[in-house]
């Protein structure tokens, strides 16, 4: 469905195989016959009439081949008259006396007409085949380019570029009107300052369901039938490609929604259980203390109060994890990267976890003079507390938990190794998924969010996190980039002591 109708049928570069315009081609055809007569003139006494007839067929063939069917026919008619005028007695008249000559003339005319028609048709067919092939090639190029493109902006660019090339336009602007966050357009050949003006040709990109966009074309010459046919095919292909992108996007969206729905369900299941257990402990302790029926020994009182405080902290950590997870999920996790001292983060996390770590031996291998590292202190500290908390949960009592840090190229590599049982290879990647728990769900508490939060935080920092069964124990690895936007920290120089 072309936006605007095309008016004339002037041929464009490829189709322009005739070197001359219409009138000139016909004049040339007549000229070629005249030329033949002029060349033959000196040889006339030596040539028999039959040979001359045959020689006159040559300019007719040549005219048809070079300039087309009608010039060929015109050449035939011209040859008929010239032959009659110069070579049939009485000479220099158009009268014919002898019947044989008349028959010769008539046959000559018929032969030349049929010949030029046949050659002309064959020539047209070749031309048509060539232009079809050219069209097919251009279409193929466009389709091949679209197949590998999955984003609407790239498709728009490619379409603009190829339309510009194929049709020799001054400028092409492709606007995508899908329900994207922002609509955009790709302009090919933007140096041309004419995109401000009204375009000479507008093509709507329409798919089965909706309008996907439009092509605006600036070109002084009008479009031929062939060209507008090709342009239409272009727009259909582009509409299809854009529709494919749109459908893929809505499919992704649907999948995401489904996932977040599943997330909510498992979250509710897991959370209601996880929140209730500390609440139950708090409620039981508080109501016992308040009941007044028992005269509590001070040590028991202390015990109950300690339970309340611990469980409150537990609840607080739980809520913090949930919040963090929802931030990571919704993409609202905003890093506040500063140049931080990694030692400090590790130390501060281990101090925070000292209560949980009381039944394990913590060992920290930090190299001296670690460089500053661009991190969000609070979040990286949380990665450590989550990994330590995970290690404490699964590793047997009185076994060591070892934190090892080393630099590795542009990254800082951290390992947290514990003596928990090896994890089957097929689970190794999935333990970082939300709510993924391998076994002993009854033995171990937690929301199943800790590791996936670690993953979210590390990836937001541009690092990687993975787990590995090693001879020395089960190991979490993660890496963090040592540079911020490719740069190292700028440290002021101050070497002079007082």
């Amino acid at each position, binding site marked *: 469905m072309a936006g605007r109708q095309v008016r004339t049928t002037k041929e464009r570069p490829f189709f322009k195989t005739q070197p001359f315009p219409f009138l000139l081609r016909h004049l040339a055809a007549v000229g070629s016959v005249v030329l033949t007569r002029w060349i033959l003139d000196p040889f006339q006494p030596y040539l028999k009439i039959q040979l001359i007839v045959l020689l006159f067929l040559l300019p007719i063939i040549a005219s048809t081949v070079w300039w087309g069917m009608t010039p060929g026919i015109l050449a035939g008619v011209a040859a008929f008259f010239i032959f009659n005028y110069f070579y049939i007695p009485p000479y220099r008249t158009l009268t014919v006396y002898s019947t044989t000559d008349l028959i010769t003339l008539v046959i000559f005319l018929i032969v030349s007409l049929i010949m030029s028609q046949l050659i002309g048709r064959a020539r047209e067919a070749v031309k048509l085949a060539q232009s079809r092939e050219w069209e097919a090639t251009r279409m193929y190029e466009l389709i091949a380019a679209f197949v590998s493109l999955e984003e609407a902006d790239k498709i728009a660019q490619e379409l603009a570029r190829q339309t510009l090339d194929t049709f020799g336009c001054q400028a092409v602007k492709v606007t995508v009107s899908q329900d994207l966050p922002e609509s955009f357009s790709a302009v090919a050949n933007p140096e041309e300052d004419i995109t401000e003006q009204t375009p000479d040709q507008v093509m709507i990109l329409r798919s089965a369901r909706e309008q996907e966009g439009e092509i605006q074309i600036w070109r002084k010459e009008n479009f031929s039938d062939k060209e507008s046919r090709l342009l239409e095919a272009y727009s259909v292909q582009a509409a299809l490609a854009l529709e494919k992108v749109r459908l893929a996007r809505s499919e992704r969206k649907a999948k995401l929604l489904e996932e977040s729905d599943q997330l909510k369900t498992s979250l509710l299941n897991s959370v209601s259980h996880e929140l209730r257990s500390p609440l139950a402990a708090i409620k039981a302790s508080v109501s016992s203390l308040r009941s007044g029926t028992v005269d509590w020994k001070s040590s028991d009182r202390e015990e109950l109060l300690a339970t309340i*405080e611990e469980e*409150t902290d537990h609840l*607080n950590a739980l809520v*913090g994890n949930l*919040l*963090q997870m929802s931030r990571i999920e919704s993409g609202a996790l905003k890093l*506040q990267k*500063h*140049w*931080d*001292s990694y*030692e*400090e983060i590790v*130390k*501060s996390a281990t*101090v925070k976890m000292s209560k949980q770590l009381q039944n394990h031996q913590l060992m920290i291998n930090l190299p001296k003079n670690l460089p*500053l590292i661009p991190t*969000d*202190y*609070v979040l990286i*500290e949380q990665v450590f507390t989550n990994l330590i908390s995970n290690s404490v949960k699964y590793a047997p009592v009185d076994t060591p938990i070892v934190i090892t840090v080393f630099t590795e190229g542009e990254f800082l590599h951290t390992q947290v190794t514990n003596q928990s049982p090896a994890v089957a290879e097929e689970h190794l990647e999935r333990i970082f998924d939300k709510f993924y728990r391998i076994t002993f769900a009854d033995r171990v508490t937690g929301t199943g969010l800790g590791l996936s939060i670690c993953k979210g935080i590390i990836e937001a920092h541009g690092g990687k996190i993975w787990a590995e069964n090693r001879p020395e124990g089960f190991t979490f690895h993660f890496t963090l980039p040592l540079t911020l936007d490719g740069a190292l*920290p*700028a*440290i*002021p120089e*101050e070497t*002079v*002591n*007082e």
Partner: protein
Amino acid sequence: MSKKPLILLIDDEPQILRALKTILAANDFQIESATTGEMGIAMAVAQPPDVIILDLTLPDMDGIQVVQQLREWSRIPIIVLSVRDSERDKVAALDKGADDYLTKPFGIEELLARIRVALRHSEQGIGSREPIIKAGPIKIDMARHVVTRNDEEVRLTVIEFKLLEYLAAHADRVLTHQAILTQVWGLSESDHVEYLRVYIGQLRRKLEQNPDEPQIILTEPGIGYRFNTSDSSS
């Protein structure tokens, strides 16, 4: 203290108000409470309290705005309360003139300690410096620019001393990265926390018993630093 110090609580959560009123009253404080920012400011004008405890999430206005409006006319110490993970808000409140912050949920001992520091500062008055500041084994003679550790002189560079001086002059209070950078380096707009990390590290190596577990210059994650003069090693 003959008169009980007056604390103004600005918080809209009845549970928190109820708990804090009971606890603070039991600790010999007088309590007034307001449930909106506007009400809080009006009450502070009517009867200036000794300390203001301000929740950052209020129904009518942003707690940071409350700090800003209070600071236009008053130097009453303000302790802000906020939930975890809102470092940005805490830093904004501190940079607007709040004196300290606490993250909910907090232990009551922490709150009482912060109130005591705030009261001490308001008694001394801002800017009036003690000539000698002590923190554990460290003694800083502000006038003579001499720092000693266990009575042995510690040699500091110019910037190290400037940094220590600024931290110690505001002892026991949290100082944001930006405040320190502005005061010590004169960097008012830039965010060169790396300078701080390096110089704080150097100071710790010179002053702390165990630089890995600092007791004097404490890190407030994501916010800044605090110069700790209390002896407790917790």
